[in-house]
């Protein structure tokens, strides 16, 4: 299958700040492509450029074979977009929201009814069809938005943090729908997230930090690049322990939240037996596990992906939204 999204040398500069510093990637038709990175890494800016919302400062992007700058309207007709913030009209009913979308996208009259029924069924909202959206829960609104994004049978569905701000149960449901969608409609899904477990579902993951792609591969391959297993220990004297481990085993130790020291070894279980026997400083906890995508990020950047402090996060968001004006 061909590439549905092609991006080369994509850059976005704002006055005093380069949000995206040259991104190259392609997305194959029918895959779930994940964009992983901390808040402010440039994920949303990239997705906004791909979906013609903002104009790239440099570089080229093509979606469904159409150029994102010169063939905007064709790109727009080929994509569905689900933003971080709700873009429903809450004063209208679910049906009215969907009907308007059909008209905006020029879906033929005879097909509308059938399509609306179909997408409502996918997200289990058939019985709420004539209710005002205002009365919906957060999760239901999200599902309705996904349904709406599907109405015009987009080739690519862009989901910007589709589950942010939802409770774990609703998040799980949303994912069920997304996977169902991929199976049923064979649609290509391009999503951004900073939840690790969500990125694991993707066929391929691009890791973004500071406006640049720092890795792009399948989640399995990314994790195996980390090399071996992850050992996490906490001791009564972490500073000394860190030095000793680094000297003895020639491996890089990272200090994590909750007083944990984390490092990688090739054969985890055998290593652990020897390590516990030999280590002088009293250990308070020991843990062995397979690497996760969080470790991948840690391995690549030396930092964990986590919520940045609010002020910093808001600052970044503002920069991005304000940018083009």
């Amino acid at each position, binding site marked *: 299958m061909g590439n549905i999204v092609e991006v080369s040398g994509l850059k976005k500069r704002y006055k005093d700040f380069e949000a995206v510093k040259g991104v190259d990637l392609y997305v194959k038709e029918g895959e779930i492509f994940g964009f992983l990175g901390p808040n402010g890494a440039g994920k949303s800016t990239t997705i906004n450029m791909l979906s013609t*919302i903002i104009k790239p400062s440099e570089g080229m992007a093509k979606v469904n074979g159409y150029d994102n700058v010169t063939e905007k309207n064709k790109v727009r007709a080929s994509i569905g977009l689900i933003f971080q913030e709700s873009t429903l009209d809450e004063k209208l009913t679910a049906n009215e929201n969907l009907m308007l979308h059909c008209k*905006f996208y020029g879906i033929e009259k005879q097909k509308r009814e059938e399509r609306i029924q179909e997408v409502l069924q996918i997200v289990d909202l058939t019985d709420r069809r004539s209710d005002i959206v205002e009365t919906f829960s957060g999760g239901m609104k999200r599902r309705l938005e996904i349904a709406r994004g599907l109405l015009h049978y987009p080739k690519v569905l862009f989901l910007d943090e589709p589950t942010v701000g939802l409770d774990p149960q609703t998040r799980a449901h949303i994912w069920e729908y997304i996977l169902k969608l991929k199976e049923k409609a064979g649609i290509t899904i391009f999503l951004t997230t900073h939840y690790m477990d969500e990125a694991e579902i993707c066929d391929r993951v691009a890791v973004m930090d500071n406006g640049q792609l720092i890795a792009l591969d399948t989640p399995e391959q990314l994790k195996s690049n980390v090399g071996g297993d992850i050992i996490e220990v906490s001791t009564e004297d972490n500073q000394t322990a860190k030095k000793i481990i680094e000297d003895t085993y020639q491996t890089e130790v990272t200090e994590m939240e909750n007083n944990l020291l984390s490092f990688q070894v090739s054969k985890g279980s055998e290593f652990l037996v020897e390590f516990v026997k030999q280590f002088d400083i009293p250990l308070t906890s020991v843990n062995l596990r397979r690497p996760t995508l969080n470790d991948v990020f840690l391995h690549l950047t030396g930092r964990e992906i986590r919520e940045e402090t609010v002020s910093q996060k808001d600052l970044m968001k503002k920069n991005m939204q304000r940018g083009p004006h």
Partner: protein
Amino acid sequence: MEGIIAIWQRDVIKFFRDRARLIGSFAMPFMFLILFGSGMSGAMSSMMGGANQGPLADFDFVQFMFPGIIGMTVFNTAIFSALSVVQDKEFGYMREILVSPMSRVSIAIGKVLGGSTVALFQGLMMLIFVPFIGVSISFVMIFQLIPVMFLVAFALSSLGLLIASSLKTSQGFQMIIQILIFPMLFLSGALFPLSGMPAWMNFLVKINPLTYSVDMFKKIILQPDQMAPALREAMGLDLTVFNHIITFSEEIIVVALLSIIFVVLATMRFSRTEA
């Protein structure tokens, strides 16, 4: 085309669904017409030479104000309709509209038509006051009023969109509209007769597009042709520019030209909006 209708339809659906706004829209005209108008009418008629006879005896301030109040309702509703553009930006729906394959021009036209339609309905609803104030309105007048109201509403909705396209918060928008609409209203002859004004004010009145809009409503409803010339003058119904009495068709042309200018500017400005 379908897109224009969809955008228009959304505004119209929302107008009829919002009961509070529907009822609230009667409040201002009611106050002006009944409280202010009735209060002023006594004072007005005594100022008109205290005439209990002669042509000026027919002067009824409430009746005089009525076309102006219809005008005021149409202006306000039309120009404020663009508030929805700012609110859509604030609540995110504008993105849904802007990322669709519809052209920016259709979106702008749809918005202007939506605002004009809503303002037309509001204006027509003011006819509810007719039985209480003793004006007689015929069906012919209503059929004349409809296109004129729509034309005036179209001009002001476009002006509203032009302003809304440059703004990001609804507070900002409301502020600017208030500052703009009040002087325009006072200098339009909607609330008092345009007679015996100082020269500077006369100038402002003549360059105010609302003057010609209000005058059209007056010409339809008050039928100045059938009035005694002295009464017509006292009511300020002989609108002149450079000693030429403006005719109804000239007023239509003025407002139509302004509509075209405003809608073109608004569309151009709106097309630059980024989601």
